[in-house]
């Protein structure tokens, strides 16, 4: 358990968010890309089998360029440790003293890692993970072996996480099944305040009573198609929201030929794409200003996208296109939030078990499972989340060859 952050003295200056040094070589970004999904992998030489750290363009042992990224077990031995009491970097100066360790990984290489304060002195077994730091770079973090939640007991290491505990969270749609599951999961995770957005407040929904009974929850009117309304709620809440979860979406199941005109596609874009833009303009500046706001700073922004953002699923063609647009915009948002140390997490589920996927056969992702994965993703500080088997399979196929996936989906649609 992390300790409840102390109340902030409201007349002191809010410190500006700082980030650790950002630049990384292209090959080192490969480590970042995997850390963004919570994976730890290093280069292994196909010629001599050597695993190396830090990443480089060729094998340090045999100069081969045949390097593949292989998953690491994370098991390692702490060989030496040190504590920094001085740094010229403004980010670390604010966080001294800072512990570093030298670790021999089970796969062979020796690496320098951020060391959790609970790690025993060397020689000791440690668990090494790849995390994104405040700047969004992949770094290695060593934790005491065998413990899963210990990250939270070291205040310096809280910054590798976006734990919703004690935080104030806006869920832009508290009404959908996913939204209700999120609200419940966040309450369970100890969020201090949860605002549950509701478009069309005149329509009560099944489950609203249960949502409203949760002590931390306030239902707020929020319709992402309404610029004035979004700006109003942004003005009211923007300076308080620590985590914004944008799960509001318009989901229909049409291709191009199945539906005449652009009316529906426009409404999908209004919510799924322009809604994100409106939210980012209404909440982004205030959240960026609170990237280092004491113990409960603005920390994360979550977008509920879809695996269909990666490749168009023709039976849900216009929906896929709107999610692809949202994915592209989220990358812009991520770049803009990066300087304030605010993580933008994109979530790419496969079909969710909800109203509009009614005719689809299983497997479908249960909203409760999705909500749990999002909360865990926040705790782990993940940037790209592919929850469920379908999503993981899709993204794997997409990585292997996007063109092949496109053709497969077209064939499936023609057959279906």
């Amino acid at each position, binding site marked *: 358990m992390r300790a409840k952050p102390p109340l902030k003295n409201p007349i002191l200056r809010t410190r500006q968010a700082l980030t650790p040094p950002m630049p990384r070589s292209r090959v080192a970004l490969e480590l970042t890309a995997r850390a963004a999904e919570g994976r730890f992998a290093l280069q292994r030489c196909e010629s001599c089998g050597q695993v190396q750290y830090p990443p480089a363009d060729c094998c340090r042992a045999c100069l081969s360029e045949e390097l593949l990224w292989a998953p690491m077990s994370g098991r390692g031995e702490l060989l030496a440790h040190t504590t920094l009491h001085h740094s010229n970097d403004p980010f670390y100066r604010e966080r001294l003293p800072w512990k570093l360790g030298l670790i021999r990984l089970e796969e062979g290489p020796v690496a320098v890692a951020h060391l959790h304060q609970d790690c025993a002195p060397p020689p000791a077994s440690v668990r090494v993970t790849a995390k994104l730091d405040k700047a969004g770079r992949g770094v290695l973090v060593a934790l005491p072996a065998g413990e899963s939640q210990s990250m939270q007991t070291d205040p310096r290491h809280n910054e590798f996480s976006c734990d919703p505990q004690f935080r104030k969270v806006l869920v832009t749609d508290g009404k959908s099944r996913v939204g209700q599951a999120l609200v419940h999961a966040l309450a369970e995770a100890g969020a201090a305040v949860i605002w549950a957005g509701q478009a069309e407040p005149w329509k009560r929904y099944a489950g609203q009573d249960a949502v409203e009974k949760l002590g931390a929850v306030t239902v707020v009117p929020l319709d992402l198609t309404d610029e004035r309304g979004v700006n109003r709620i942004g003005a009211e809440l923007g300076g308080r929201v620590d985590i914004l979860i944008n799960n509001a979406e318009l989901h*229909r199941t049409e291709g191009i030929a199945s539906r005449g*005109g652009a009316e529906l596609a426009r409404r999908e874009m209004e919510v799924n794409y322009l809604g994100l833009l409106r939210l980012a303009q209404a909440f982004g500046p205030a959240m960026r200003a609170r990237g280092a706001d004491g113990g409960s700073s603005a920390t994360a922004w979550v977008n509920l996208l879809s695996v269909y953002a990666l490749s168009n699923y023709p039976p849900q063609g216009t929906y896929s296109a709107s999610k692809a647009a949202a994915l592209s915009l989220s990358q812009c948002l991520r770049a803009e939030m990066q300087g304030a140390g605010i993580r933008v997490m994109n979530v790419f589920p496969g079909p969710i078990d909800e109203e509009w996927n009614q005719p689809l056969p299983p497997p479908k992702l249960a909203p409760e499972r999705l909500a749990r994965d999002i909360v865990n993703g926040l705790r782990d500080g993940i940037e790209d989340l592919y929850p469920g088997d379908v999503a993981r399979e899709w993204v794997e196929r997409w990585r292997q060859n996007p063109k092949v996936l496109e053709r497969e989906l077209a064939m499936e649609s023609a057959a279906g």
Partner: protein
Amino acid sequence: MNEVLEALLAGLAADQLKVVDLTHTLSPSFPQLSLPPEMGQALPYRSEEISRYDSRGPAWYWNNFTLCEHTGTHFDAPIHWVSGRELPNNSVDTIPPERMIAPACVIDCAADAERDADFLLTRERLEQWEAAHGEIPAGAWVLMHTGWARRVNDPVAFQNYDDTGQHTPGPDVACVRFMVDERNVLGFGTETIGTDSGQAQRLNPPYPCHYYMHGAGKYGLQCLNNLDQLPPTGAVLFAAPLKLEEGSGSPLRVLALIPA
């Protein structure tokens, strides 16, 4: 100046005539027609800033707005319904402008609607009204005053949905036939979102006011405000829809002239 127009202006200037605004303010939260979600939907009113004395336009403020032809206080043209699709001059751009100024008969159903949200106006009720106020003249608006406009700031009460759908007052089938076939009215106006009752999809034919009124080239007015300020007879309505090409309806400003 023509003496009739002069008398009109003089009447306004001397406060012998009063202008009543029968229009609600268009806002993003104004209650909107709602269909099953798989169907096409009427867009609610939305306004987005173009500039506000800022870098996007340094000395001026203006907005783009979007809405459906049937959003807010609005006019229904005959082409709106399938029964009126083949009629001449059936869209808002071709409606003869002289029909945009017409007398109004106001039927007070506020107490009935208060008692029963599903209240249906009947032919008998209109005949009672005529016994008191005289026959509904051809070419007149018939306006159903239900007090619904008072609910406008409470969207739950205005929409009045439950698990069986919407519960709002409107006319029954025989009442519509009477107004169309025997009185040749100009159209029918309500304070609710439709000219038909909330449960009118269960009548035969469904949505009889839309079906028969528009099938006979008559018009509709919806989401009217301030009907409580109108006398049963003697009001003149100015209801001019926007001149939208092939428009099925239009938001509009509805004004009534009444004796002060």
